């Protein structure tokens, strides 16, 4: 079994498991198809597939025997940005993103259970065309935080179980963005401090692609849960996932990008009319000096999560569940990128803490088949002034449905579908001027974002 987990983790590391925001901020909450089918309600009544390692570690307490489950959630996000002024819409080009999960549990004693989980609770993937007007904020971005969590749970008695997991987190990030020539200093004889915008270079004239890439950032955290079952028909759960700070050290690679401008005569660069601006830029030598390949670092804190939930079974075959989730997104207030040559760049994010409300149903309708459904509502983490191409998120309504099938005594499968409808949200496609903070006045269009999610998990009991 460990070999399978390692193999899956290796696949993830090889790039088959980029995550995409499917909850709030760059949070992903779909780490078990059973729970996904009931709108992510997993804290008060975890599923038996081991996904409790993520949703509520106490949930594996008292499990007998062993369980291995492997699954994947395919996230197909789509949307776009409609410019206020021109009315033109640019569509997202996000591919179908597979987000894997894997769990292993084993009952050491009737009360003590050990487990190991792999999941990706934070990640984002946004891909825009490289002609998108927001490409100066970022057009191809990928952030992943893969959690490897050994877990122990103890069933104190028939009423209370507790559990805790230690999270080893492996993170990577890749940001691609174009650099704006109009913001760059004009060469002599222009006075010192003059920008190229002041000599006529238009706003958002690309001249370089910046790729910032960092892998193997590591961090540590914990996941703690408690499950209370006062009666067989009622269960209450609580869970806390700690924050994890990831320090990324990577490289920034700058490559020249075509400006598309051919200089007319009498230009401020002194170049003959008909000279491509790209030629002039190349001769300035910036790609050998200021924009030479260089090291860079950044820190991002994956925020804390608190979940509280209750599940009630008015009849044995039917359970109604509700859960509240709070995510400490205000930790994501700034993103500081530090480069060897370029110095420090601070991006204000100013995220707000979010509340999510999940409601799920589970119905053992016929023998060996379970139907699930749910609805969830999530607040947006990004304030109105930081809705950007990097992550154009907002308030969401999500609808889920699922099916669990017991294939054999040892083998079960879960399938689920989830539709995410994010409220259309105004946002910006530019950074604020240097030294200023973002404001809603910079918002110049409307972001749309919706997603279809497909989950499948195979579970093997032994």
């Amino acid at each position: 079994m460990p070999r399978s987990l390692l193999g899956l983790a290796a696949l993830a590391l090889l790039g088959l498991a980029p995550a995409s925001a499917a909850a709030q901020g760059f949070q992903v909450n779909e780490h078990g198809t059973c729970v996904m089918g009931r709108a992510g309600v997993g804290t008060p009544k975890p599923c038996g597939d081991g996904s409790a390692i993520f949703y509520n570690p106490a949930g594996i307490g008292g499990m007998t025997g062993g369980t291995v489950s492997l699954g994947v959630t395919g996230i197909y996000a789509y949307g776009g940005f409609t410019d206020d002024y021109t009315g033109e819409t640019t569509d997202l080009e996000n591919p179908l993103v597979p987000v894997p999960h894997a769990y292993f549990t084993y009952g050491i004693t009737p009360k003590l259970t050990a487990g190991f989980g792999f999941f990706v609770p934070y990640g984002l993937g946004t891909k825009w065309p490289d002609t998108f007007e927001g490409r100066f904020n970022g057009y191809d971005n990928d952030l992943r935080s893969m959690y490897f969590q050994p877990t122990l749970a103890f069933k104190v008695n028939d009423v209370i179980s507790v559990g805790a997991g230690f999270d080893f987190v492996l993170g990577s990030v890749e940001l691609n963005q174009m650099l704006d020539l109009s913001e760059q200093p004009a060469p002599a004889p222009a006075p010192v401090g003059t920008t190229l915008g002041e000599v006529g270079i238009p706003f958002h004239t690309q001249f370089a692609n910046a790729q910032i890439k960092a892998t193997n950032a590591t961090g540590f955290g914990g996941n703690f849960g408690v499950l209370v079952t006062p009666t067989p028909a009622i269960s209450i759960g609580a869970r806390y996932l700690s924050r994890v700070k990831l320090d990324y050290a990577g490289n920034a690679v700058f490559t020249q990008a075509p400006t598309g401008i051919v200089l007319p005569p009498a230009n401020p660069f002194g170049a003959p009319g008909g000279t491509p601006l790209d030629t002039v830029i190349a001769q300035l030598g910036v790609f050998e000096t200021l924009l030479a390949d260089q090291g860079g670092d950044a820190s991002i804190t994956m925020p804390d999560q608190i979940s509280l939930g209750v599940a009630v079974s008015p009849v044995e075959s039917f359970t109604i569940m509700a859960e509240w989730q709070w995510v400490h997104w205000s930790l994501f207030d700034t993103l500081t990128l530090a480069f060897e040559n370029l110095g420090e760049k601070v991006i204000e994010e100013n995220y707000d803490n979010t509340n999510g409300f999940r409601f799920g149903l589970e119905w053992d309708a016929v023998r060996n088949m379970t139907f699930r459904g749910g609805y969830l509502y999530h607040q947006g983490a990004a304030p109105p002034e930081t809705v950007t191409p990097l992550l154009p998120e907002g308030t969401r309504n999500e609808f889920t449905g699922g099916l669990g099938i017991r294939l054999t005594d040892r083998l079960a499968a879960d399938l689920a579908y989830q539709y995410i409808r994010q409220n259309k949200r105004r946002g910006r496609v530019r950074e604020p001027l240097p030294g200023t903070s973002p404001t809603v006045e910079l918002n110049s269009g409307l972001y749309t974002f919706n997603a279809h999610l497909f989950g499948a998990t195979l579970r093997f009991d032994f």
Partner: protein
Amino acid sequence: MIRRTSPIRLGWALVAVLPLVFAGCDDETVNEPTAVDPLFVRYASMGNSLTAGLQSGGLNDSLQNQAYPVLLAEAMETDFTVPLLRSPGCPPPYVNIFTQERLGGAAAPPCALRQEPVPTRINQLAIPGAEVLELFDYFDTDLIPSATDAFKTFLLGGRTPVQAAAEIRPTFVSIQVGSNDVLAAGLDENNAGDPALVTPPAVFAERFDAMLDSLDAIGSIDGAVVIGVQPLVLGTVGASVPYFSPGAAWLQFEQVFDGMTAPLNALDVALGCATVFVPFPVGGGTLAAARAKVDSVQGGLLPPQDLVPAVLSCEDAQVITAAEIQNIAAAAAQYNVHMQQVADARGWAYYDPAPVFTQLAGTAGAFRPFPAFDPADPQHETQPFGFALSLDGIHWSTLLHEQIAAGIANAIDDQYGTSLSP
């Protein structure tokens, strides 16, 4: 059995109702641009120095904001972004054409830079010096290098007006071209009025049509107004561009000058000047030389008998001959015929500025047939070419911009049934 299924039905119903309880579908919306009429929600202005608002040989933010496209945009109640220049300008405008003093004095840089922050879009796409070809092509071999070429990068970042228009996807455009296709000849210092520098009307028509083809390719334009070239000869008054003074006026001035400086004869205007137009630098230079001679005599530096008059010879290379002015006027008229035909065929508005100029020609002080060279003249510094023109004798004054804007608004209203006119 009924009792067992009721909670289940209730549960599913609850989940179905919850979205209504949370009702999170409060979508925000696109803030579409607004205007007094949907036709004008995205307005682009294309043209030359007149369109850009250049006055008194200079351009700055104040003058840019007095240009007729800005006034039109205000009437349209549409957003209109101008690539504003810092004060005192690039170059700063003259404050005295005779002393060549410019705004900001000698300490001012020859070109103050563009204002920051750089606008995210530009609606004022006019390029001083632009001929029709330069609205869509900067590199044709027929183009003659000019100092105004610097504006192509400085205002539009090296993009042609058509390329820049494509970025804002205009619903409405105004197009003013033709003046530089004829005036380049008039301003040529080697052979003023050189017919070879006048864009032949057939070539103009071909280039104008090609420019419109490029505009059509943008695919967003619902309407336009084409502005004709102003009439250059205004009856007996002279030129609508007083930079070119009628030679006959110089002949009259010779007598006045000689009378003022009698018994000296420091200025000699050739009789051949009677039928030509004299560019300001040529006539002004001759007059300055004559004054210097008078000063020398009066200062005792030059014996009166040694005074040799400064001569305005009106040689062909110096002045615009009658034939040349006719050639220029005829070309401009043919440009206008073609532009009007095209505008009519497309259902666009066409504005002929001739009535405004004719009306002003009949208004005292609008266009001076002869510059106010005399420092004692009350208009010497402020309106040396008349109140309709700025201090360079070529470009429109703010008042004329206002009248042109009103005329264009009328033409648009007539064509599109809008109500831009007050």
